[in-house]
């Protein structure tokens, strides 16, 4: 894969094994899915896939997540019925990072929700109880969000169509901000990302993310928890945004624990800017560590 020189220069400085990292970007991540526990059990899915002769393997870090070398899982009856949800592994991390909080939450916000992978996962973890507000600014993308909510039987959801920066005053127990980003981490499936890549694009996203992160935090109830995530490696959009939040709000960064998943700590310095030392509690997901796409997440409490 042809990567821009500047991209290579930036990340060679912060990744543990540049050679493996850059090589991983040229290979597709494995096909993965999540068992939708609203409609099915792991045992049922394992039995059905065995009967089809499709080999699947449960991940070591999320009992409902499976990978398969067979690209045809989209043609199964279970996919048609919404018993499984085809989803990239790394994108399953945000709800998993607050699994315990979600079990007791009544009021949850997914601020940039389309196409609904996270929303439907959150709904399943909450066992269809309480309320998940799935918001997205883009009306066209809401069609996909609605489709997936209906397919998975996520009854405890409602869809809204606000600009996340202007979401009306409310108090949520848990807020997810999976921010629009430069999507560097999805290069394994979207090769064209590298041809469109520029530092200017990164800085443009960071500006929007700063506004979104403050609004998302302001929507938390006292004691509430927020997950900030992106699918990019760019520190300006990752640690830089979390640092901006703690500089501007009484936000406390918490450690994330997902046993058997390999994370790198957040970095505390980038381009001569020093971040709050707690930013290292954030998690960088490099594709070559768990054979996923690239991701970043941080857990913050109020």
């Amino acid at each position, binding site marked *: 894969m042809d990567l821009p020189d500047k991209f290579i220069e930036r990340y060679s400085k912060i990744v543990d094994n540049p050679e493996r990292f850059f090589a991983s970007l040229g290979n597709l991540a494995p096909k993965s899915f999540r068992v939708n526990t609203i409609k099915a059990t792991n045992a049922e899915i394992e039995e059905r896939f065995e009967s089809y002769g*499709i080999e699947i393997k449960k991940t070591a870090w999320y009992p409902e997540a499976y990978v398969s070398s067979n690209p045809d899982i989209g*043609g199964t009856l279970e996919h*048609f019925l919404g018993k499984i949800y085809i989803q990239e592994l790394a994108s399953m991390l945000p709800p998993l990072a607050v699994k315990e909080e979600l079990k007791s939450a009544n009021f949850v916000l997914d601020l940039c929700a389309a196409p609904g992978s996270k929303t439907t996962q959150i709904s399943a973890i909450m066992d269809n109880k309480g*309320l998940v*507000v799935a918001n997205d600014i883009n009306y066209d993308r809401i069609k996909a969000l609605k489709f997936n*909510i209906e397919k998975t039987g996520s*009854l*405890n959801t*409602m869809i*809204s169509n606000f600009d996340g920066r202007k979401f009306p005053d409310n108090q949520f127990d848990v807020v997810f901000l999976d921010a629009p980003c430069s999507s560097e981490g999805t290069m394994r499936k979207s090769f064209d990302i590298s041809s469109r890549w520029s530092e200017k694009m990164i800085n443009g996203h960071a500006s929007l993310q700063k506004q979104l992160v403050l609004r998302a935090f302001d929507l938390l109830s006292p004691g509430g928890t927020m997950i900030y995530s992106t699918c990019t490696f760019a520190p300006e959009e990752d640690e830089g945004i979390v640092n901006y939040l703690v500089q501007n709000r009484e936000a406390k960064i918490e450690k994330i624990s997902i046993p058997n998943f390999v994370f790198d700590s957040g970095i505390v310095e980038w381009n001569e800017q020093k971040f709050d030392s707690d930013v290292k509690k954030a998690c960088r997901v490099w594709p070559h560590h768990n054979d996923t796409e690239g991701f970043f997440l941080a857990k913050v409490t109020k």
Partner: protein
Amino acid sequence: MIDNCPQATQDKVKEYLFERFGISADIFDNFALNDGGKGRVYLGPKAIMPSHKSICAGITIARISSAIKPSTIFFQLFNKNITKNIVRLDREKIVKFVKGEDLEVTETETNQSSEGYVLVSYSDFGIGCGFLKDNQLKNLLPKSKRMGLDFY
């Protein structure tokens, strides 16, 4: 803004689903029936966030026009609660149904179902909604959900 369906509509929908499909009204106990506009009835959370930019809450369970038409997604979610008016298709026919074809069905397959909306099932799975008339099964799967099945 999302509003609850008028009580009369709620009663009418529950009564129809019980009469035609044997669905007990307790499945609705923890949820609300909301008005989705254009005759759509949603089953969703009881507590919602009041807002002028709300689009919907929960999932579409039926559409009311001259009759009440249950949705495929409702049937897929609550198929285990349905006790009558079920058309059971075999392996060969279910592939055609999921692709979107209308089908001719036998008396064994219709299993004493009466004319009207039916649950189309395969093995233990609720596949979707059809309309039965004179041994003809009209396919009511939404176009966006139709697909070719490779493994079933």
